């Protein structure tokens, strides 16, 4: 337990470069003698930032451009502003992940283009830019303004489509990130941003000031240059090598043995079931009394149903991020979010089950001289049991599906391989999470069908 408390937690974002750098940091810390663990592929900048500020993670790789544009917009002195929050920004790691313009190597050599300025002298080059680049203020509009490039012949495309078009010779140049794996594979020449149109996105570590000096030194010793980063991204994305292995190779260490498929699936099943079982059980225990209350008191009942309905409309990622300052990252905020999402179906099921009881049946129960509590237990709840179970079943199936999003905040479960698989465009990996999740949803459904046979009185099933 003490070891876990003292362990340094490294975070990484949900894209390959961040995971690799996070893994390198983790292994470098371990090599320095510290206990370190890696919370990989957390949702996005916001999740990492909140988790770092809340002390849930101790360090994660970030980009200077993101810090100045997104996290602390308008701050002139980033180091001082971060310092006020108990956070330090390390030395630049050594590579930039900025916007860049790449053109086909054959065209570059034929025309002698080396810089973006050279582009303006060759309007015959066909450029295709990603839609995001076309839209972002620091993308095409900026390029157009600084270099005076003509808009004729410029097309908006999807990022992946642009690469493919480039390889097929349908276009001559496109936007890319300066560490993209495709740079190694695609036969591209990166044009120098000679007029500094693009903001710089230097990679740095953000870490908590309280980190032991030895650990800080270990982090500062991590140096990765541009070519190394491109090569490592390519190994992960094109050669499908695991990030652990890439990091170990980079640091000249031996990679830990990878976990086999059955063990992986088993571990994730455990994590997933943990999230689902606790959140669902808590929702059942609270929602049935709330459903009874909603039925008994029509006015506050409507307000309660409206509230539970409103909870349902909060996007899952937003709900998860809201809870990081309160509950940190990991299973706890995921369980609370799943619990909140499970309330509505069960409250509504209980309410509609009670409302559907024929008035003369309810009246007979009272007229026989049963006190209200006994009427509830002996007559109303058994008669509403089918609707209550239907609500629980709906909640369980939604819960199993939504729990995959828990991976965004480090709760593990089947969502983890799905996230990784999407990031690496690895269908097999996506299925490694999606298939067990679907199976678990079906299993939950079957379990509640069985429970219906046991719990719903036989007289109601005729």
């Amino acid at each position, binding site marked *: 337990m003490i070891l876990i408390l003292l362990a340094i937690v490294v975070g990484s974002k949900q894209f390959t470069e961040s995971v690799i750098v996070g893994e390198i940091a983790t292994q470098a810390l371990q090599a320095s003698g510290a206990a370190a663990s890696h919370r990989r592929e957390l949702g996005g900048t916001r999740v990492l930032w909140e988790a770092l500020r809340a002390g849930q993670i101790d360090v994660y790789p970030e980009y200077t451009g993101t810090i100045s544009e997104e996290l602390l917009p308008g701050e002139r002195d980033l180091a001082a502003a971060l310092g006020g929050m108990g956070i330090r920004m390390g030395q630049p790691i050594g590579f930039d992940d900025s916007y860049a313009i790449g053109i086909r190597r054959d065209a570059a050599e034929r025309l002698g283009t080396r810089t973006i300025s050279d582009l303006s002298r060759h309007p015959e080059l066909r450029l295709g830019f990603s839609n995001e680049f076309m839209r972002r203020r620091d993308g095409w509009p900026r390029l157009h303004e600084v270099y005076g490039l003509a808009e004729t012949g410029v097309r908006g495309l999807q990022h992946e489509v642009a690469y493919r078009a480039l390889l097929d010779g349908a276009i001559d140049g496109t936007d890319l990130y300066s560490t993209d794996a495709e740079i190694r594979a695609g036969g591209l020449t990166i044009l120098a941003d000679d007029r500094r149109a693009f903001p710089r996105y230097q990679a740095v570590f953000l870490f908590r000031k309280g980190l032991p000096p030895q650990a800080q030194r270990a982090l500062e010793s991590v140096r990765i240059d541009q070519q190394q980063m491109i090569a490592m991204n390519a190994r992960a994305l094109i050669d499908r090598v695991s990030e652990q292995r890439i990091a170990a190779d980079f640091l000249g260490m031996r990679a830990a043995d990878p976990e086999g498929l059955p063990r992986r699936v088993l571990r994730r099943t455990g994590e997933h079931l943990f999230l689902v079982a606790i959140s669902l059980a808590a929702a059942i225990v609270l929602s049935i009394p709330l459903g009874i209350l909603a039925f008994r008191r029509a006015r506050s009942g409507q307000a309660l149903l409206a509230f539970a309905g409103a909870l349902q409309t909060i996007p899952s990622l937003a709900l998860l991020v809201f809870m990081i300052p309160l509950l940190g990252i990991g299973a706890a905020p995921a369980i609370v979010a799943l619990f909140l999402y499970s309330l509505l179906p069960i409250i509504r099921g209980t309410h509609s089950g009670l409302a559907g009881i*024929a008035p*003369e*049946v309810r*009246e*007979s*129960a*009272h*007229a*026989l*001289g*049963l*006190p209200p509590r*006994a009427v509830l237990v*002996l*007559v109303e709840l*058994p*008669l509403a049991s089918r609707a209550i179970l239907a609500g629980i079943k709906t909640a369980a199936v939604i819960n199993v599906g939504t729990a995959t999003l828990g991976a965004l905040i480090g709760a593990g479960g089947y969502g983890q391989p799905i996230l990784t698989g999407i990031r690496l465009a690895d269908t097999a990996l996506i299925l490694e999470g999606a298939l067990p999740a679907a199976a678990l949803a079906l299993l939950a459904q079957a379990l509640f069908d069985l429970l219906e046979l046991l719990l719903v*009185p*036989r*007289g*109601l099933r*005729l």
Partner: protein
Amino acid sequence: MAAPVFEARSVVRRYGGALALGPVDLSIEEASTTALIGPSGAGKSTLLRLLNGLVAPDSGEVRFLGAPLAAERLPEIRRQMGYVVQGGGLFPHLDGEGNVALVARWLRWDEGRVERRIAELAETARLPREALRRFPSQLSGGQAQRVSLMRALMLDPPVLLFDEPLGALDPMTRFELQQDLREAFARLRKTVVLVTHDLAEAAFFAGRLVLLRDGTIVQQGPAQDLMDAPADPFVARFVRAQRPPP
């Protein structure tokens, strides 16, 4: 003299502002059979529900055996009144026996006593034991009504309340059940109040008829009085409308 079983004093009941009943004064003696009759919407069912507290009066007071119907004592008071509604109001999740024995089991009667009482009642209600093992959805209308009667009689209450007990039955079943019910009333010596819109049925069961119209009592007395000496033209019309065509 002993207090009447029921006594309603200036009872008024409104539903959403509209007057449903009252002001009504009514007294019901022990071991009598009283029929509340009148056209639809006259307030018969409301008056019956006021007697067992399913409906509370807006003003006035209902007394049972001399004491007001206090909310906290209602369950206990109601166990002294059997109650049968149109269609039986049986609990669909319990079989016939489960319906009949529900309250007795809740009161923790021992199973032997429950068993003996059910056997006794099956005879009174002339219902084969096999029918008690079926669920309400598997029973005919007449059987459901007999189960409902057994359920009302289970605790052997001194009072029986019936709300259109035979309303939904076909004529043959209805005739049989009328005979059986009257026989049972005569043998059990209960105080019976029943609601019906059928004058002949009321006359068949009850020594005293209470005719309601628009929430007030128009006339009460033996059936013969209503026919021979109607209190006003409405009573005469009501009686005439119920006679078979010549």
